[in-house]
């Protein structure tokens, strides 16, 4: 059993190194790694095509696809611009008020949509509003990325690592609301307070044209109000079902896909345009990583290191959890948090098999993966998006600027989360 274990680990960790080095697109690397794992598995008889298919977590893929379809239908209606313009008008052009309102809008959206999608949608209109008022968009863009990273941790559907953790641990939508939301709310408030302090100088500058922002009419941003209304009704229905999916013994993916199906039938959008807005490469990336992890598990790697897990399981769970938050956060600050989560899921499962109460560890993994990405520009896709957008403005976000503001936010969110985690999970 040694050769399959060595080869499967070589393929998996080799692929992760290539993904982290960004020498090759992550989806291409994952497809190649997945295919190689199945071929080697078949040659050495430790993995089969059927086992590879079983290893794919269709609950995760279905949930992601369902939500992507709903957002793709809502995006062209102008609903997100509507929310941003509403916030801009409510702020009356006052920078601090605008900062807080846009942060709230972004975070609420990030709790229900993938935070990358949230930033892609909100950041361009934020830029426009800041340029119209005549203030630097830099604090706004950075806070939108940082707070969407933070807010996304609150719900099952807010962040891809949460979808993975929810599916692996069997956590429901409500489990996230009970265990994650309270910690995230406090952490988010701390992050917002810190950002207001860090950007105090930028936000205290007097806006040059408040009048223009008051002339923005939110209703005019809605290109297709009827479609927006229909998608929002379906989305609201889906959220209601998310609250009760566990009681109904229905998976979150079935809720999301059913909602997408209802919306598709009701709206009947142009499918070519719709499918262009779906991030297929993300879905393929996830599926391929599942195939690779399935290969590692089939090769008996977990059984062979179960002794190690048993030794680790003597560490107090609380200390282990806090340590996990910081280790995962440090890793997530420099590399993609999805492969980190996928790699750690079998490890936590292994700890569970060896007798450890792993429920708190799942939450530690979620907090570390979610908050760690704020530390550096490359830590989260949302960060890269706002930095790229800022290059189109007069105020580009440099690594130096990010390290001065993003890193303190990461350290603060991880610290607050660790303290709350220690208090709330000390009973375990």
């Amino acid at each position: 059993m040694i050769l399959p274990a060595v080869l499967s680990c070589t393929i998996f960790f080799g692929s992760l190194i290539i993904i982290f080095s960004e020498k090759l697109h992550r989806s291409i690397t994952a497809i190649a790694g997945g295919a190689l794992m199945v071929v080697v598995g078949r040659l050495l008889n430790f993995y089969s095509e059927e086992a590879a298919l079983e290893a794919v977590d269709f609950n995760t893929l279905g949930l992601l696809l369902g939500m992507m379809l709903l957002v793709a239908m809502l995006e062209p209606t102008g609903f997100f611009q509507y929310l941003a313009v509403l916030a801009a008008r409510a702020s009356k052009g006052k920078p601090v008020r605008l900062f807080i309102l846009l942060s709230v809008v972004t975070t609420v959206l990030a709790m229900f949509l993938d935070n990358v999608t949230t930033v892609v949608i909100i950041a361009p209109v934020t830029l426009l509003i800041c340029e119209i008022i005549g203030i630097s968009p830099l604090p706004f863009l950075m806070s939108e990325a940082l707070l969407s990273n933070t807010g996304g941790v609150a719900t099952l559907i807010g962040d891809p690592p949460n979808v993975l953790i929810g599916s692996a641990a069997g956590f429901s939508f409500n489990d996230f609301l009970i265990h994650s939301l309270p910690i995230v709310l406090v952490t988010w408030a701390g992050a917002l307070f810190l950002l207001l302090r860090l950007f105090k100088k930028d936000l205290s500058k007097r806006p040059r044209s408040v009048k223009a922002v008051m002339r923005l009419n939110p209703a005019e941003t809605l290109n297709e109000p009827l479609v927006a209304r229909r998608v929002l009704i379906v989305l609201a229905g889906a959220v209601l079902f998310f609250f009760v999916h566990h009681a109904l013994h229905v998976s979150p993916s079935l809720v999301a896909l059913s909602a997408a199906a209802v919306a598709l039938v009701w709206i009947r959008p142009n499918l070519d345009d719709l499918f262009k807005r779906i991030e297929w490469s993300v879905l393929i990336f996830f599926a391929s990583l599942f195939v690779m992890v399935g290969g590692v598990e089939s090769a008996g790697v977990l059984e062979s290191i179960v002794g190690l897990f048993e030794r680790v399981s003597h560490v107090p769970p609380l200390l282990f959890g806090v340590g996990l938050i910081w280790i995962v956060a440090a890793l997530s600050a420099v590399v993609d948090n999805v492969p980190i989560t996928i790699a750690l899921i079998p490890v936590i499962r292994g700890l569970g098999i060896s007798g450890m109460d792993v429920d708190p560890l799942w939450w530690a993994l979620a907090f570390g993966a979610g908050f760690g990405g704020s530390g550096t520009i490359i830590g989260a896709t949302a960060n890269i998006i706002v930095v790229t957008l800022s290059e189109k403005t007069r105020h580009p976000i440099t690594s130096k600027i990010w390290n001065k503001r993003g890193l303190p936010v990461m350290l603060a969110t991880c610290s607050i989360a660790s303290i709350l985690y220690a208090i709330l999970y000390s009973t375990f």
Partner: protein
Amino acid sequence: MNVSSCMKKHVVSVPVTATIREAAAIIVSKHIGLLPVVDKDDKPVGEIGIRDLLTLELPDFVSLIADVDFVHDFGAVETTRPSARTLDKSVKSLMKPVISVDEDCGLLRAYALMLQHNLHDMLVVSKEGKLIGVASRVDIGVAVLLAWGKV
């Protein structure tokens, strides 16, 4: 007919050492839309147009928003001027790669390239690669339509 038959032969250009401010001043004084950037041998190394200069006033974030019809007043954008530091930068920081055709290029090939690259003016170079003229869409279009009189 080829492109050299309809091009403007008097071409205003700037050296690579020129600043953005100097390039803008020439565009204003000559009332032209495109300014070729040439090396010391008069070979084009880039081009800078009004659209490139205006990106300093209106950054291209507008292109990221599908519909700006709802913005009735661009507010501070209308009065934001580039900084002196930006204007004193070399044209190299703003110029685009040169797209040119040889003097014996056919009219419709030149027009097709302009459509493909979304150009309003096409630089024309000699066999030695030296800048010898500029043909606009109007120059080329009129030259093509002239031939219709003989049909």
